[in-house]
């Protein structure tokens, strides 16, 4: 077949078009697949969701421990009311068809509650910046989830989604920690002045 002529191009198209689309493997691959199938497809948390859960629990538990260590002596009931005007925290999901590990959701809920309690004490400019950052991360999460619906199992998208969740939770944890430290410092300062 000499290169370049339109006749050659047509012949090549014919050859390519005539190739079988289907080739059976030499052995039955089903037993190996079946052995790796867990029940209830798509409704369980994925393996890498556990990584996220572990990371988030670490952040959350360290925040809670820090809270216990530096918590002001105000009664616990003062911590309970959540601000109705706090930033919207969208429930997390790893792709449209995936439920998250309940522990992950609890950890995220705890961080969101703590954030809601502290956000009113933040300066207006910092608060709007925080809300914009969280909204941006949540928008990114939605877009990556949509992309994952089209490209299921894409490792880059999955990693990106995991990073986005972690970034969102990292922002929440950092804000909680900073506002707590700020409150503790103010309290220490007041006590010093009283002395």
């Amino acid at each position, binding site marked *: 077949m000499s290169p370049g002529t339109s006749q050659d191009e047509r012949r090549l198209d014919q050859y390519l078009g005539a*190739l079988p689309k289907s080739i059976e493997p030499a052995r039955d691959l089903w037993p190996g697949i079946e052995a790796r199938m867990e029940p209830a497809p798509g409704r369980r948390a994925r393996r890498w969701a556990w990584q996220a859960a572990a990371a988030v629990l670490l952040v959350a538990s360290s925040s809670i421990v820090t809270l216990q260590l530096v918590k002001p002596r105000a009664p616990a009931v003062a911590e309970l009311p959540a601000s109705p005007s706090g930033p919207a925290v969208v429930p997390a999901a790893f792709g449209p068809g995936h439920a998250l590990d309940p522990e992950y959701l609890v950890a995220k809920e705890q961080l969101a509650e703590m954030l809601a309690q502290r956000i009113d004490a933040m300066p207006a400019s910092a608060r709007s910046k925080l809300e914009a950052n969280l909204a941006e991360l949540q928008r990114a999460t939605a877009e990556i989830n949509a992309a994952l619906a089209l490209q299921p199992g894409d*490792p880059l998208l999955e990693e990106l989604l995991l990073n986005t969740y972690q970034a969102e939770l990292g922002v929440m944890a950092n804000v909680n920690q900073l506002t707590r430290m700020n409150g503790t410092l103010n309290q220490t300062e007041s006590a010093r002045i009283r002395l």
Partner: protein
Amino acid sequence: MQDRGGDSEFEKAQRKARDIGRVEAAVRGSSSAFEDLYREHVGRVYGLCLRMTADHALAEDLTQETFVQAWRNLARFEARSSFGTWLHRIAVNAVLGQARRRSELLGETGTIEQQLGEVLEDETAGEPGSTRDLEAAIAGLPPGARYVLVLAGVYGYSHEETSAMLGVAVGTCKAQLHRARKLLRQRLGEQEEQP
């Protein structure tokens, strides 16, 4: 065993409806429905993996990985494309992920012609020699050109679909296809000239 991609529109619609019913049953937990999907589509998935990787054993592993990922992500399938196309996207991701992890893999083309020859020996027994020659010539292409030729040239995906699957620009896709076709014509021309 091998389809030639010549199904009528009615047959395609029938198959799509059947696939959707099986997907719904599998999402509810029916592994037998998923096995039916496997039996229906394994040839096209394995064919794609074999042609993209040029490695018989690896293609089997990646076919299994594709169906395991499909099972885990089944709830994400939205029927906007055919189930076969959705599987192909997962398979391409599996191939690219494996290639990233084992960059040396795609240099192992020494045995592919023999492997493809073995696989296709029975199937192509009464056919013109050009089919087997063409498979061997495709297997001998550089990886980038081979990926594009397999997706666009053999499986008929558009440049847009092919570039999206491979994560490359449409222009790159067109250039790689042009290069692949040129190399194929040269190779097939050389074979024709041999006595």
